[in-house]
Each structure stands twice: as C-alpha cells, then as structure tokens.
C-alpha cells in the first residue's frame, strides 16, 4: 500500500477485519511484528516510542469515532491542546480561527457535554487541523452521528483536507463516505486489497447485512 501526499484513502471492511489495527500501525500508535511502514519518509520500525511521539506531533493528526475530547476543557481549549503540545506560540488565536472555520465561533467556551454530537465532532476536526498535519487519520468519523450531521461533517472534513493538502486515511463502514475518497481499500480477514470503484460497490451487501444483524 502506497499513499501519496494529498491523497484521500478509505479503508473499508467488516468488524474484526483488522481495519483499526492497520490504522494503529499506520499512525505509529502500534508496532508491527514484521514488515515496514514508512510514514512521511520515516521508517517506523527504527523509531522508539518517544521518536514516534515526536513524529506524530509534527506530522500526524487524528479524528475519532467517539470524538475523544477532554470533557473538562472548553471547545477552544480542546482545539488548542495539540498546538500547545507542539509549542505553537499563538495557539489560542489559531484555535479561534479553526473553530470559526468549522462554524463554531459562538461555542468557544462551551464544554463538550454542552455540545451536540455533530458539534463535538466539528471541534475534533478543528483540533485535528490546527497543527496543519501532513497526514490525518480518521477512525469512523461519522460513526456516532445521524446521516444529516454525518454528511455535514464529511463535507467539512473533505473541504479542509483539500484546502490544506493533507493526506487523509479514513477507516469506515460507510460506503458513501468511502466513495468520496480518491482511493478505496478493502480489508478482509487481515488481507488488504485496493478496490476499483466497482469492487467497492461489491462490498456493500455484506456490510449492510452486518449492520442489520
């Protein structure tokens, strides 16, 4: 699997097929037992935990299905967090700008529990883009949202992705969302294959069947 700068890639597959494991490995959160991953030019196998953390700080960002906001911090403070960790000087100003871009300039001082699910994910998107990452990993970003909100979030995600020329790697069940990516991969029992658009359609049935069960 080879992903170029600015690409958007969807990884599809049923539950338990290994999508999240792959995401963990690609994002330098986990260590592979064999094989090699090159992330933004760095071979991950040669890095220790600290070096991997430094790499993530500089080049990588995340969006999660469960948002993973710090529930005691305000929307603004949540967005500032990665910038502060990276030692960015005007973190607050940048965070304000990011929240404005995701349409939440009126919610700066709200706590996560005071926001709707869609709003929480918008905060998470703002947080993901504040450090202008080279690569953005998204784990079921619309998984916890209804379809209307899910679509809005997806629109926002792809728009920001395009604006900032970020590489997007997205794990999802949602075929519609996957189709908006330039490339689709299907994961099945640990095997990854790149799907042409027609192949991506073919995984629709089992996915739906699984969702209904």
């Amino acid at each position, binding site marked *: 699997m080879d992903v170029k700068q600015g690409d958007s890639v969807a990884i599809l597959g049923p539950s338990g097929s290994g999508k999240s494991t792959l995401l963990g490995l690609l994002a330098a959160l986990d260590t592979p037992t064999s094989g090699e991953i090159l992330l933004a030019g760095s071979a991950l196998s040669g890095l220790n935990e600290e070096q991997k*953390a430094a790499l993530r*700080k500089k080049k990588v*960002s995340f969006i999660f299905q469960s948002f993973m906001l710090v529930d*005691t911090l305000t929307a603004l403070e949540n967005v500032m967090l990665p910038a*502060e*960790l990276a030692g960015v000087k005007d973190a607050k100003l940048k965070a304000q700008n990011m929240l404005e871009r995701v349409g939440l300039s009126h919610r700066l001082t709200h706590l996560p529990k005071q926001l709707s699910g869609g709003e929480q994910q918008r905060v998470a998107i703002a947080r993901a883009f504040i450090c202008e990452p080279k690569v953005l990993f998204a784990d079921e970003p619309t998984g916890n949202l209804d379809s209307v909100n899910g679509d809005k979030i997806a629109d926002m995600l792809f728009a920001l992705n395009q604006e900032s020329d970020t590489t997007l790697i997205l794990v999802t069940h949602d075929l519609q969302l996957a189709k908006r990516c330039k490339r689709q991969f299907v994961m099945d029992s640990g095997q990854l294959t790149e799907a042409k658009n027609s192949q991506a359609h073919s995984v629709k049935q089992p996915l739906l069947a699984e969702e209904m069960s």
Partner: protein
Amino acid sequence: MEWQLAWRLFKRELAQGQLLLIVLAITLAVLSVSGLARVSERLQVAINGEAATFIAADRIINSPVVVDPKVLTIADELSLKHVTNMQFNSMVYAGDKFQLVTIKAVGEAYPLKGKIELSSGEASALPSQGEAWYENRLGGLLGYPESLELGNSILTLSAEISRLPDGGFNPFASAPVLLMRLDDVNATGIIQPGSRVSYIYQFTGDVDALAAFEQQVKPLLNNSQRWVDVQSGDSPIASAVKRAERFLLLASLLGIALACAAIGIAAQRYCQRHYDVVAMLKTFGASAKQIRLLFGLHLMLVTLLGIVLGLLGGLVLDLTITQFLPPEIAAYSPPYLRPFLLGMSTGLISAFMFSAYPLMRLLAIPPLRVLQRQLEGLQLGMWLHLMLSLAAMALLGYLYSRSIALTMTVVLTVLLLGLLLSILGFVMIRMGHSVGMKTTNPLQLALAGLRRRARQNAVQLVGFSSALVLLLTILALRQDLLNEWQKQLPEDAPNYFLVNIAPEDTQPLQQFLDLHQIAATEIYPVIRGRLTHINGEELISGEQQDAGMAGRVGISRELNLTYRDTLPPNNPVVEGTFNQADDEVSVESGVAERLGLALNDTMTFNIDNQSFTVKATSIRNVQWETLQPNFFMIFRPNALEKFNYTSMASFHLDDDKLKAAGSPLSANAVVLQLIQQFPTISVIDVGAMVEQLRQIIDQVSLSLSLVLALVLLASALVLIAQTEAGMATRQRELAVLRTFGASGWLLRSATGLEFALLGAIAGLLAVIVAEFALYMLKTQVFELVVYMHWPWWIIAPLSGAAVVSILGMWRCRQLLNQSCSDLLKAG
C-alpha cells in the same frame, strides 16, 4: 506550556467538581493531623495542667535529705520555676490542749500550681512571718485558739485552710496540717540532725524543659529520693490521664490511616478518569516528559489546595475547640510550627505516595487506547502499591506519634485487617455462585451483580469494613473509657472520708448514718503495722541502702492494714486466690511489684511489738481513683482482730440528696452535727477534689468526641470514594440491562439491594474484626474489661446496609434515571 495546561486542567476540573474527592481526602488528612496535633497538645497540657494542681507542680522531688545543689542549678539553667518545702510531724500546744500535726513549711513561691483555699476565699499570699494557717479540723481539735506553740516559737493562727493544692488524697493522713513559712522553721529549733523530715522540691516549666530536666536529674537521685509527676504513683487521676493519652494517640493514628485510605482510593479514581486524556495526548504526540510534567504539576496543584484547605480547617477546628475550654487552658497556645509542618508533610507524603502507583499506571497508558479502549498498559502488581501505601502510612504514623511501637502496631493491624477482609469478602461473595442470573427478580439480579464483581467488591469490602471496624473500635473504646470513669466517679462518688473511728464509736456512727439516710461504704478496721521481713530476710530502708548496706529494700513507713472475710468491691484478684486461711494475706499489685514479691512469699509484720508471719496468696488490682477506702494488705479477721484498731469509711452527701430524703438539714449542718457528736473522728472533705476529677474527665470526653467525629468523617469519605470507584463499570452494566428491557423499578431495586447486601456483609465482617481488635486493645493496651457487643451483630450489618445503599443510590441516581440511549452513549 505544560504549566499552563496543568493549571487550566486543574481549574476546569475543580470548577466541575471532578477533583472534589481527592482534594477532600487530602484536606481531611491534613486537617486531622494539623488540627489534632494542636488540639491534643493543648488538651494534654490541659489534662496535665489540671492534674498538676493535685501536686501543685509539674514535677516533684521528694527527699529525706537536702538534694544535691546541682539539681537546682540544672532547674535554673532550664528556666524551671521551683520552690523548696519541708514537711514533718510535730506536736503543737495551745493552752492545755496538744495535737500531733503535719507541718508544711513552704518557700516563697509556693504553690507553683493551683491556689490555697482559705475559708475566707483564695489566698493571695503566704502567711506572714510568725504566722501560720491551720487546716479546719485542727481548729476544732484545739478549740480555735489565737496562737499555738511549735518548739521554741509561738505562731499566730491567722487563717483557716479549706484546701491545699497539694493536699493530695490520703485519708490516713490523720494529723491535720499546719502551714507556715520555711524561713520560720529554724527559729522553732525542732529540726535537729536525724529528725524525720521530707524535703519537697516542686518544679514547673514548659514541656521540653521538664523532659530535659527529668533526663538530667533522674540519674542523680538515690533510692530514698522519689521523683513524682502527675502520672506517677497512685495518683487517683494517673491512670485516667494515661488511658486518655493513649486513646487520643491511637484514635488519631487510625483517623490518619483512614484518611490515607480515602486518598489512595481517590487517587486511583483520579488516575482512571485521566486514562483517555493521556492516551489522546500521546496520540497527538505528547512526549513522556511532557505528560509526566503535566500530571506531576496537576497533582501538585491538587495537593497544595488540599494542604491549604486542611491547614485552614485545622485552624478552625482548633479555634472551635478553644471556645469550649476553660479560659486558663485556652490561654495556653502551643507553637503553630509543629502542627503546620506535620500537616504539610502529611499532605505531601500521602498524596504522592498513595498516588505513585496509580500515577505510574496512568503514565504508562499506551496511545493505542484511543482505538482500543480496553487497553490499560502496565500492570505492576498490587504489591508495589501496597508497599508504597504501607510505607507512607508508617512514615506518617511515626511523624505523628513519634512512637515506633504504636506505629508498627497500627500498620500491622491495618495490613492484617486488609488481608483478612479480602479473603473473607471474596469467599462470602463467591458463596452466592449457584444463584443464576434472571432479570426479573431484583434480589437475584443483585446477587448476580455482587458475584460478577467479586474481585472489585472484595476490594470495596475492605474499604467499607475497615472504615466500620475503626469506627466501631473507637466508638466502643470511647464508651468503655467514659463508662469506666463514670463508674469509678459516679454522681454519688464519696465526698467525705471518716477516719480514726474508735471501736466504741462504730455502732453509734452507723446509727447516725442510718438516721440521716447516708449510705456509707462498709466501715473498715485500720491497724498500723510495719513490714519487717520477706521470706525471713530482714528488710532495709532506702537510706540504709544508699549508705552502702546490702539487703532487700522494704517500705520505710508504717502500713495501714485491714481485715475482712471477703474481697472488697473494685479489687479484682489478678493472681492466686483471695485469703482462704488465717495465715494468708492479699497484696496490692503495685506494692507487690515494688517489693519484688511473688505468690507464696512469706511476709513478717510487726504490730504493737508483736511479730507474725503470713503468706501472700493473692495479688489484687486496686483502682485508686475510686475514692473508696483502699488497702495494700488485706488479712483474715482472725489474724488481726486481736490488735488495737481504728476504722474508716467514706460516703457521699449533698444538699439535694438530703432534701430528697426529706431532711430539713443541709449537708454542712449534718457534717457539723457529726463532728460535734463524734469529736474524735476526723472528717475529711474531698468534694473539691472529686469535682476537679470530674472536670478532667469532661475535658477528656470532649477530646474523645472530637476524634470520633474526625474518624466518622474519614469513614464517610472512604465510603464515597469506594462507590465512586465502581461507577464506570456499573454504568456499562446498567446500559446493557436497560437495553434488554429491564424496567426502571427492577434496576433501582437491584442496585439498591446490591449495595445493601454489600453493606450488610461489610457490617458483619466489621463486627467480627472489631470484636477481635477490641479484645487485643483492651487486654494489651487499655486494661479494660472485655465483653462482647451483641447488639452490634445486628446493628452493624443493618446500618452498613442502610448507609452503603443510601450512599450508593445517591451516587447512582443520575445513572438510574438516564435513558437507555444516554447510558449507551456515556458508556
């Protein structure tokens, strides 16, 4: 940057109440230590100060000769106040009447503690030169003369003494006291070389100086010189004070242990809550150093807040207590430094040592947790946590009590308790294994819940039960100590002693007492005799031993002996059997120890120049604080009846009692009648002393209640912390049960029942362990009577169930009222 982040996280979490528990736990630990250290220091001074007025000083050296001048030099160097007095017996003459009196010749500074009470009020100075003050009985015996002769001097009697601060409590001191100036003694010419005189050196000063003085001076004293402090000897209050001090220290230590447990649990919860935050921060590239710094600073802020609040609380506690203390004690303000430092170090040590392990686990959370929520990273094993916690507890205990023995006892008890409770709890919960899981019956659902969480519940049981055990132990000890004192000093504790009752007066006296409906103790015959030999070996005096003579040291004065058929009340036999044959004697344990006497040793007594030998066949404990006639030696009637004797008795008399009995007379009038009717009987009024004793006991009770309140608070905190800790899993389970259609009623009853069952088991375990702990404490430390607390066996499980279910339901109320989707989302 980390600093800003830590501060922001701290500020927000504090405002949202997330840090309440851990801050409260630290606050309580600091408050207990700093507040109690100061309060108990103050109370100790209060208790000892009150008690010291019994000896009119903090320390006394009692010597038959003038002491080495070095002793007084040391006292001066340590800035102790001191006064030298002399005491001896002599005859005084007034016209044609004469009387043996005890002369108390006192130095200018007398009394160092307390006041001389005269019949005209408190004395503000000493008698002038050439004057003397007399004890009220002496006036009656001599017919109230204006002056009397003592040796070559004539002393003017200028005032009547009602009570001397070191009047002590010796009903056998049959000679009335005459108080005069020390510098008048020479002129009397009575004291010649070889005269029997006691030199009484009294000292007062601050606690540290007194301790240093004791250390330096005690080695300089010889066998005939006695070192006396409030707690030494047969002082009626000594044992009360000793017990109270031990209790205060023990209860405070247990309170601290509990507060530490609350910190431990709260710290664990604190860390668990931050698992996700750490995982998220690591995902976004935070370095290990950044995370360490962030949470180190965060915890530091939490600790600092706890310490500041705790110190303030301690101050408030101290100020509150001061309101209840008599002004003279409240005026004594021990330095703030020690309680302050103790409080600070308690906060720091407990917060960091108890959270070290949870914090280590927190820092080791893998970033992958953001994708796989069940990951918790490092499992270092509980032993490390246990070791750290015990080490912290030991360190704190030692800092507070400065006693290795007491600290080790508490730590080992806590350790044993924890182990025992874990095992018992686990076994009891596993016993419910056969019960199936049906979602229709709340009881079965509750049992299933208990079983599912067996391991976690065992840990919770340790928390609940430990809190209850400590509470029950402190409650029972406090009650027992108070009861014990109340029993010894009931409202109608004797306030009058009658001594020198002639045999022919015994019958008429009894009639007099019956007439006025006065319930007196039995009338005890008193025979004075000297102990001359033990096991055939002649005894020598302390002075003789100091002069280089070899031999066994006896008692250099005459003893008061009595006889009776049966063991007197409050005289439990600790060894042997009470007198069976006429040649047997029962000995008080203190004097037996002093003489090195063993059971079946023989003793030879000399009474009226007749010698006879008896065998010690029982050793008795005597409670000197009972204010009953008490004796070192009790014989069989046949052994002593042939000798001359006088008798003694004691009784309680007050105006209310007389009024209730329909008597028109006041207590004073009755006593006056008694004196007039029986002029040879000495009536000793100990009412004032009884009142003083009661005051001391009241103060001690106050301190005991206070400690109890603190232990109660700590226990409640442990309970809340425990419930808090189990919240997350409970939420997930409720979500599942709700999804499967369990009704709100079913879930509420099942949750309530589960908590109630847990509380009941904890209560039962607590009673078992508390009874054991009480047995150990009562027999080993407090010398109290052991008995089972049967009502507890019902009350403790019931109240355990009530408290735990109320607390638990209160904590779960939101969860139980949440809709299914909310629960699932939150889970």
